């Protein structure tokens, strides 16, 4: 653990401020709580919101896992994991089951999360209504009055243009029957995992200065039409490394001739499965 930094980088007053925002977020599931986001030693868009939330809830006994697009070995995941290893001296892991705290960008691990685990999302744009309504004063009012008709205008537009709901990530959800929430850019494949998840889900948007949360066992429903129900992506083939047919697959180009293969995006789940098969 490096000297000269407070535990987990942020000063104690900042952590208290962020914890207050998190508590309020947990008390009002899906509601975006404004907070005084700090400058972090990484650029906006790389996870400044998530890293502040993680820094505020992490303790010396926590075991941290960081994933980016499902993988533990990408630049963003490696540098954030190392950041906390150095500033907080916590144990890190790549195993979903061993982690008490998981910071993620763009995925929810394939392995179901348990009670006591915390999942921290990095959020670029926390406002699900933003694409339909540019004014912040107006979107806040729409949330306050639960005027969510325009979200369906967006879905209608998808069906009219593509014949189905073509939005495939950051798919809007209704939390606890009240607030419409942006689940961050996770694929809609992961949306069903958020519903009644035993783990606590925290969302941090650093640039937009918003924190929101979904407490354990809270209903999270993806918006849809009666005659065009919500559905997730499917693939024709299973993962070419581990053979799983129930996971989210990435298309990987393997040479300059256009050869490609489909593999699990969750590197931990994929490796565990390969080990189990061997």
């Amino acid at each position, binding site marked *: 653990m490096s000297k000269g930094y407070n535990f987990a980088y942020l000063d104690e007053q900042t952590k208290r401020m962020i914890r207050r925002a998190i508590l309020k977020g947990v008390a009002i599931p899906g509601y975006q709580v404004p907070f005084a986001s700090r400058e972090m030693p990484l650029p906006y868009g790389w996870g400044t919101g998530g890293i502040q939330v993680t820094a505020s809830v992490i303790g010396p006994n926590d075991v941290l896992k960081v994933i980016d697009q499902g993988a533990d070995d990408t630049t963003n995941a490696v540098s954030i994991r190392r950041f906390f290893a150095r500033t907080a001296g916590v144990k890190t892991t790549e195993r979903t089951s061993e982690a008490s705290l998981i910071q993620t960008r763009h995925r929810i691990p394939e392995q179901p999360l348990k009670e006591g685990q915390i999942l921290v999302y990095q959020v670029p744009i926390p406002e699900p209504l933003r694409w339909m309504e540019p004014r912040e004063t107006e979107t806040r009012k729409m949330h306050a009055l639960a*005027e969510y*008709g325009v979200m369906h*205008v967006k879905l*209608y*537009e998808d069906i*009219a*243009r593509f014949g189905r709901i073509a939005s495939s990530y950051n798919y809007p959800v209704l939390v606890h029957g009240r607030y419409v929430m942006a689940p961050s850019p996770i694929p809609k494949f992961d949306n069903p995992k958020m519903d009644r998840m035993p783990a606590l889900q925290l969302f941090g948007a650093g640039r937009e200065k918003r924190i929101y949360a979904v407490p354990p066992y809270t209903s999270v429903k993806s918006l849809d039409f009666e*005659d065009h129900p919500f559905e997730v992506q499917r693939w024709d083939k299973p993962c070419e490394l581990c053979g799983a047919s129930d996971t989210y697959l990435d298309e990987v180009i393997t040479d300059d001739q256009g050869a490609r293969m489909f593999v699990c995006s969750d590197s931990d789940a994929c490796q565990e499965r390969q080990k189990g098969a061997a």
Partner: protein
Amino acid sequence: MSEMDAILSVRDVAKLYGGRGGCKEVSFDLWPGEVLGIVGESGSGKTTLLDCLSGRRTPDAGRIMYRGRDGEMLDVHALSEPRRRLLMRTDWGIVHQNPRDGLRMGVSAGANIGERLMAVGARHYGQIRGSANDWLERVEIDENRIDDRPMTFSGGMQQRLQIARNLVNGPRLVFMDEPTGGLDVSVQARLLDLLRRLVREMHLACIIVTHDLGVARLLAHRLMVMKDGRVIEEGLTDQVLDDPHHPYTQLLVSSVLPA
């Protein structure tokens, strides 16, 4: 009919900007199915008055009472904001002079028409699309334009789309601010025909702000003439236009260029 049956009852409404401009001492009643025209020159307070009536601007003084579907009189500006916004979505329609202000330019015509339905809870795609098709036909837009964005429509079509979008869930009271402004004469004529038909079919109460006396004569049953924020003359449309009493109205009527 007595005052008891009025759908909108306006008393001594005033809205001033720093002591001048705006409108003052405006009182009138509007009955169901009636079209009221408000005419006057630029800066006479027509639009300010319309904004106050439609709940988008709070008047400095006076009361605006609206009779809800259950017959109860509601003070528009004393209502809680959620109820006022609900009223705007369900009972009222607002047609802007510039269709770009009233339309969602980034989504298709069908989505524009369906928005109000979805805002009050419609969640069946097929039915929403059905109503959108139905309304495109009623405002004489070709059905195969349903998935085109309003951006690709002509000015007249945009205005008709805006009208469809406002009327789709059967409002009772429609506010129109210069609905034919900026359209050429033949397009204006078609739009006026359409409006007249819809108002009659749907038994709409309607307040139309215009500076075009021709529009007023065609559409309005009753006319209010405004100058410097005050109503200087009001009466049946033909009466006001054929036998104007106030010198300003006489000037206004005589300024119409003969076609």
